[in-house]
């Protein structure tokens, strides 16, 4: 199963991780710092309570002045109330900043993912992406607004508390410290083990999310073959692996928890023994001993919490690594720094010795496109014909820079497409794909997707564009939908048939009114009658628009002025349909109908007509 382990960056340290968040924090970092400071104050207040207790025990309780009980207890109550107030203030201080940083990172990941080239998305399943953009970000937020704040606050509280222990009894405090040393050993051992486990578990859950996604998107296939149970057992296998990693994480935490619980107890026992001995020697008062243990009791909370906070920190850190795995992917397809603003807009499209090789392809694999040279004149319609898998789809994706050429160049009106801004380029080139992607939006918004200029235009104008595009693509069926062109379609709306989706995708490309129209087998799901009507209408559009059309059928080829034959990654021949039929055996093989096929159905009419038709 493909995981992305091999591509991960080495884990960064907590400090470096934190530093990488800073750009997303902006001024909200002050809120977090304020939170840490406030958490320190509330811990200090908690530590003040034992001091007041000591005063109480060694003062009024010895019978000095019973009336002093009131102010002493009042002080203790006040300290507690302030502690509660500061806990509230800490939460308020980090609340909004924490969630705002979380939002910024979410948005930044989304933006970055949208900008990353299609080649990146080909390799990364969206389950993995989702687990990073959602789960890991959530983890990071909890760490920022709780873990980091508490870790800083508690660490300082522990230091402060130990300092106070020193004021009660240096000997006991030193004893307490020495006894606590093993905690650091176990802490760092835990850290080493947990970091690896946490990363592995997060990656595993990403794969599990991918399994879920595939099982839903491929449900029709699984259903037809009755493979639900097999996919379930594959899923269960992945999930069980994830479970085992979580259990291993839990065991590591349990082991650390054992030491964090036991070592302070051991230290306290030693302190109790030595403390009593010191008191028996007259070196310590009862009140001091009392206060020492009361302070140590306040310290127990922060010390125990270190285990949980450490685990949270390590998880957040590996989550952060996974998030930055994405940020570290460079967007290789970007607008140039100084884009050329084209003067002419005739719409000529030229491929010059274009090569394309899939990213990560081995040396011995030949380029998918291996020196394609092709010139499409302004207003001309060029059909591309080639065997299944000959690279037609890649060829159509190159002009709009969904992929970048790995050699050679593509010129739009004599300008390299890489010298145009992406926005200009993709405004001038519109595409319709064979597997038509519609978005969860209204029909209108789906069709007018490429017309950003119509957003503020009067309704009449956009209605006209919409109506025309729908009519050319024979997609008038949308007017019969429950809410007409305002019906919600896409995954979250009404589900349409393959043919209907394809026609809307075609309407979308037409509505964009581009100079260059790229159509990848745009009519494959249409029935013959509809196809004929669409073609008739499309012909009018194509008479003025430069077009590159991938064709599998003679009927589609008939839309084109010229045909390019793609074979072995090169353009083998260019000419009109009849020229190619006459000169190229490969072309005849690819495009002529099924005449040479032995037909079981003994219908002479059919075979006869076939023979005639491919002339």
């Amino acid at each position, binding site marked *: 199963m493909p995981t992305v382990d091999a591509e991960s960056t080495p884990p960064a340290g907590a400090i470096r991780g934190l530093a990488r968040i800073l750009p997303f924090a902006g001024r909200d970092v002050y809120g977090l710092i304020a939170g840490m400071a406030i958490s320190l104050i509330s811990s200090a207040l908690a530590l003040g309570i034992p001091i007041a207790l000591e005063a109480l025990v060694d003062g009024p309780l010895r019978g000095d002045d019973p009336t002093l009980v009131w102010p002493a207890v009042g002080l203790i109550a006040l300290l507690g109330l302030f502690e509660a107030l500061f806990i509230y203030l800490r939460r308020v201080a980090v609340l909004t900043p924490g969630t705002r940083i979380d939002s910024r990172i979410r948005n930044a990941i989304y933006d970055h993912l949208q900008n990353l080239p299609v080649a990146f998305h080909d390799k990364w399943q969206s389950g993995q992406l989702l687990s990073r953009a959602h789960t890991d970000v959530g983890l990071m937020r909890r760490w920022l607004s709780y873990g980091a704040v508490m870790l800083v606050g508690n660490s300082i509280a522990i230091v402060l508390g130990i300092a106070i222990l020193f004021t009660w009894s240096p000997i006991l405090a030193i004893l307490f410290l020495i006894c606590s040393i093993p905690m650091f050993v176990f802490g760092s051992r835990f850290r080493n083990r947990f970091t690896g486990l946490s990363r592995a578990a997060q990656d595993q859950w990403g794969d599990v999310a*991918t399994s879920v996604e595939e099982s*839903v998107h491929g449900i029709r*296939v699984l259903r037809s073959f009755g493979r639900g149970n097999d996919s*379930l057992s594959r899923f269960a296998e992945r999930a069980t692996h994830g479970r085992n990693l979580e259990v291993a994480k839990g065991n590591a935490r349990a082991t650390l928890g*054992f030491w964090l619980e036991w070592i302070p107890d051991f230290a306290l026992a030693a302190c*109790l023994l030595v403390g009593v001995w010191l008191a028996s020697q007259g070196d310590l008062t009862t009140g001091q001993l009392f206060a020492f243990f009361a302070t140590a009791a306040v310290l127990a909370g922060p010390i125990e919490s270190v285990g949980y906070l450490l685990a949270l920190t390590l998880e957040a850190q590996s989550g952060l690594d996974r998030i930055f795995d994405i940020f570290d992917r460079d967007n290789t397809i970007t607008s140039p720094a100084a884009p050329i603003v084209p003067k002419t807009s005739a719409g000529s499209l030229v491929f010059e010795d274009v090569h394309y090789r899939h990213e990560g392809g081995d040396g011995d694999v030949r380029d998918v496109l291996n020196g394609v040279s092709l010139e499409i004149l302004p207003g001309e319609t060029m059909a591309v014909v080639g065997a*299944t898998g000959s690279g037609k789809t890649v060829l159509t994706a190159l002009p709009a820079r969904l992929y970048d050429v790995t050699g050679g160049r593509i010129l739009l009106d004599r300008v390299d497409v890489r010298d145009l801004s992406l926005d200009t380029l993709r405004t001038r080139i519109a595409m319709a794909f064979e597997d038509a992607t519609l*978005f*969860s939006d209204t029909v209108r918004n789906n069709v007018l997707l490429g017309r950003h200029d119509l957003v503020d235009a009067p309704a009449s104008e956009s209605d006209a564009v919409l109506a025309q595009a729908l009519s050319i693509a024979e997609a008038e069926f949308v007017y019969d939908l429950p809410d007409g062109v305002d019906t919600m379609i896409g995954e979250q709306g009404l589900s349409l048939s393959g043919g209907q989706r394809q026609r809307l995708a075609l309407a979308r490309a037409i509505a964009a009114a581009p100079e260059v129209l790229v159509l990848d087998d745009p009519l494959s799901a249409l*029935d013959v009658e509809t196809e004929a009507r669409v073609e008739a209408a499309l012909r009018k559009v194509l008479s003025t628009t430069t077009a590159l059309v991938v064709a599998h059928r003679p009927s589609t080829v008939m839309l084109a002025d010229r045909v390019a034959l793609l074979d072995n990654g090169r353009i083998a021949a260019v000419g009109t349909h009849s020229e190619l039929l006459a000169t190229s055996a490969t072309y005849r093989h690819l495009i002529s109908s099924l005449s040479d096929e032995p037909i079981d159905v003994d219908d002479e009419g059919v075979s006869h007509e076939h023979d005639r038709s491919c002339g």
Partner: protein
Amino acid sequence: MSTTGVAGEDRQDFTTRENKAIRVRSIALLRVLVRPHRVRFGWTAIMIVASTAAQVAGPLLIAWGIDIGLPAAVDDGNFAPILTIVVAFLATGISAAGFLAAYTRWSIAISQDILGELRRRIFEHTQRLSLEFHERYTSGRIIARQTSDIDTLGELLSGGLSNLVAGLLFLVFTAVALVSIDPPSGVALAVALIPIVAVTWWFSNASRREFRASRIYSTRLIIQFVESMAGIRAVKSFRREPVDRAAYAAKVEDYREATRRTIHVFGIYDPALKVIGTLTVAAVLLFGSFRVIDGTLEVGALLAVVLYTRRFFGPIEDLAMFYNSFQSASSALEKISGFLEERPSVVEPANPAPFEASRGDIVATDVAFAYSAGNPVLPKFSLSIAGGQTVALVGATGAGKSTLAKLIARFYDPTDGVMTLDGRNLTTIGDVDFRRAVTLVTQEAYLFSGSIADNIRLGKTDATDDEVMAAARAVGAHDFITALPDGYDTDVNKRGSRISAGQRQLVSFCRAFIANPRVLILDEATASLDIPSERLIQSALQKLLKDRTAIIIAHRLSTVAIADRVLVIDGGRIVEDGPTAELLKGSGRFATLHRAWRDSLA
């Protein structure tokens, strides 16, 4: 409005009755999930009790150390009592830590097993639910159920459950210890419970609403994320990025605000408990101090009382944390239990008699189909397809061809009438047997991550390499597969992006070929193929279909040419039915269509 199943998933407010119904189904689900683990749960609880008891003993021993050990050592130079106490303290310490580590392990294992079972159930249920359901419930929602909802529940189970048990026990033990040392202080504690209950009641109501909102917004976020990543090509080519970005940012902001509110509610609850705790400690201390001065209470006992009272509020905060994650998890559980409550409209029979297709006769008797009442897609019709026949379904887009195919493949059940295969009503055949007999190949040829060979094996899981290759050869896919970098072992990556649409269809044909079903239904399964590939498929089909029943839907009439019989469908009705050759000679719809197709070849 209904709250059954996934209905009401996007609502935040429910009536008391609806709330109760939702709660009942969530708790019922939780109970079912927990039941198999109740023995382990029992042991875990015992370990928690042991660990907590040992922890509670700590302050008591320190109090004894000061009250008994200290005077003995100071006054008599007798160190025996303090040594005994220290040894006892060490013993309780190590057992507290040991049991703590043990129950942590156990409770994590239990909670992970529960989560695993829930994941499995959701996955299985997803596969069981009818396509009709999937057409309206987006994939993003199911992914949200399986990821963020499960995660939320995981937080409760892994941390919260031991928090709950330990917290409650700690509470009881502490109260008992406190009362045994100093009964009057116990009264203060009892009084403190009143405001605690009041604050908790407020929190419960406020947080439920906020957590529900947070679940809803998180689901919306996931839906858009999945949709735009899956459609990234279209997003890029039509420059939808700014629109999507704005929409996503708005959803992120909704989610942020919901999250902020959930945290804020807890941010009030937590310090409120602290205030109650502080006031109680102060009261106990004040009262205790005067009794120490009176000489009715030992100083050590006062320390223990103060420590216990403080400790009493520690677990209350733990319980608050538990309650917080419980509220969050229960809104996730609401969604999950609702999803699991959905009943598939196509139901597998309970105890199906074994079935093996013999001839492959398909008969539809008075069958009608409608997605919603009064809106028939297929009005009442009857149809009989003899075993071994190859039938072509012809008609315009949206005429109902695919619906008919899906009825035969039992993706839907008819609203009226009966469909039979070899005389058996489809609804009485077990799914495994049925799928072995009937296979539907659609235009959308989905490839799963894994190798090409894995994808072909989907048709027959135990197929040998030779069988896989033979299937690929038969449908003409062998050449392109061997040309791939790793041949049959090539990873298809996400959604088979490197594999072209035509190649995907070839792989999908390999699956059908290797599955070798009695009845094969092809729904536009050749639309993306180029002519040479289609030609190969045609000849493969002729061999393949010779001894089985086949239903072919194709816009290309070339595919229709291999059919024995043609059904022309228009507006959900079968308007022409007859042998291919006969219909061609006539002047009906099929003859007209055929002429149009012939012309298109020009």
